[in-house]
């Protein structure tokens, strides 16, 4: 019971304070919408009952799905390529020498700085957004996979080859599972980047999705919708992380008794 109350104290105090401050009229209402009006905008956007969000009324699901699909496409692509390249670089000196310098040079370039090129190459549509998401999600997966592969206990590999594993089996049945904890850490960072970049891309290079609604509402000075969009992005990002955490808890259940769970 005690922990339940602890969970709610801080959010409730913050929301109450915000509501009171906003209603006090210290700032114009349009500039800092009260939580109540954000909830109003959000619920109309979701179920469409009094059209306060005008053309968006009732369109939330469509916008959310548009964003989520971009996140999913870019993230899935980045995971596949990131894990494959990471295993190759971590395992083989040849791949490391051939690929690593180029990739390490591309890595510090912020994904958003690719926007002009992405638009020229792919036009205004899903593709530039997916490309940006890919860039943002790829490097965390890559770096963590390389780290995971390079830190695999040498003796596990020895045990594998002692049991007659082929080179290919060493990779799939020993190196990959041993690197999974690290790979999952990368996937969780990547899903966060994926949402950030979807929204960024939607602000400039796509005409649909939560990011587009956010930016469009900003032009119409509808900060309540801006905030409703921010909340939606946060919520969906939270859900996708929860999903990955769930898969991770199941896949890495063998770790349950060896990792620290927090003492208090």
């Amino acid at each position, binding site marked *: 019971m005690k922990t339940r109350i602890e969970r709610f104290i801080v959010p409730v105090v913050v929301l109450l304070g915000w509501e009171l401050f906003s209603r006090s009229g210290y700032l114009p209402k349009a500039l800092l919408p009260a939580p109540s009006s954000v909830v109003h905008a959000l619920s109309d956007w979701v179920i469409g009952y009094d059209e306060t969000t005008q053309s968006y009324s009732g369109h939330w699901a469509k916008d959310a799905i548009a964003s989520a699909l971009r996140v999913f496409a870019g993230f899935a692509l980045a995971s596949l390529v990131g894990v494959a390249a990471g295993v190759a670089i971590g395992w083989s000196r040849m791949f490391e020498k051939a690929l690593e310098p180029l990739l390490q040079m591309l890595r510090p370039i912020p994904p958003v700085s690719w926007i002009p090129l992405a638009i020229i190459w792919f036009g205004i549509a899903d593709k530039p957004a997916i490309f940006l998401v890919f860039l943002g999600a790829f490097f965390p997966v890559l770096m963590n996979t390389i780290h995971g592969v390079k830190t695999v*206990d040498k*003796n*596990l590999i*020895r*045990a*594998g*080859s*002692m*049991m*007659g*594993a*082929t080179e290919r*089996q060493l990779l799939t*049945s*020993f190196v990959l*599972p*041993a690197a*999974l904890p690290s790979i999952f850490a990368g996937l969780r960072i990547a899903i966060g980047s994926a949402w950030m970049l979807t929204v960024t891309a939607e602000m400039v290079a796509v005409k649909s999705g939560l990011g587009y609604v956010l930016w469009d509402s900003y032009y119409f000075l509808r900060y309540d919708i801006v905030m409703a969009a921010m909340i939606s992005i946060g919520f969906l990002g939270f859900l996708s992380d929860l999903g990955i955490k769930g898969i991770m808890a199941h896949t*890495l*259940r*063998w*770790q*349950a*008794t*060896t990792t620290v769970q927090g003492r208090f």
Partner: protein
Amino acid sequence: MASIELRNISKIFTDPKRGELLTLDNISLDIEVNDFLCLLGPSGCGKSTLLNIVAGFEQPTSGTALVDGIPIERPGSDRGVVFQHPTLMPWLDVIENINLSLRLRGMSRSERHERAKEFIDLVGLKGFEHHFPSELSGGMNQRVGIARALLMNPRVILMDEPFAALDAQTKLEMQEELVAIWERRRCTIVFVTHSVDEALVLGNRIAVMTRRPGRIREIFDFDLPRPRDITSPLFNDAKRHVLSLIREESTKVATP
């Protein structure tokens, strides 16, 4: 023909802290087919290194190592290894760890589990089939490692202090089982231990190594009939002899 032939094996490690480190110094050793060779020697004298060379994990700096007349180039399932540390796959449960070598050969799950059962009983881990290594004690994990190597049914078994982490009773049982398996299968065993009693209970040949740089100080046949009585005069004579060799080694000035 000897099962394992070591010809003038030397091993030098380049260690950033100690520079060049001569670990094995010109070791020549013939281990015959069906030998049960027990290897004794002070800590750090290169016993694990020697096993690693036979296992194919390490290459000697000079000299040649042959198994059945063929130079050892890489590890293989003809040589089962029980590691000094259990070295299990933490993501596999006990039964899957034990039958992993069968899975790598593409055997079906049910067949694998059938084969693994015998070895789970043998090492006394019935009821723990579906526990992960992190849920077992060190000694239990070590037994999983032993079962894994025995199930491979290799011609050569290399064991690096396999029973060091076991309690006295379990150790006795495992020693008896190991001798029984060896007599039944007629395989070649190289068994590293720190216990003179254990070496003399198990081996039909005993090798004592010097301090590092490791050389073979003495190797002798020991054909006391089994089951061996550790209080018999013959056993005690052998023990006195081995202990005196070890004492001489330990009073020598330590090489840095």
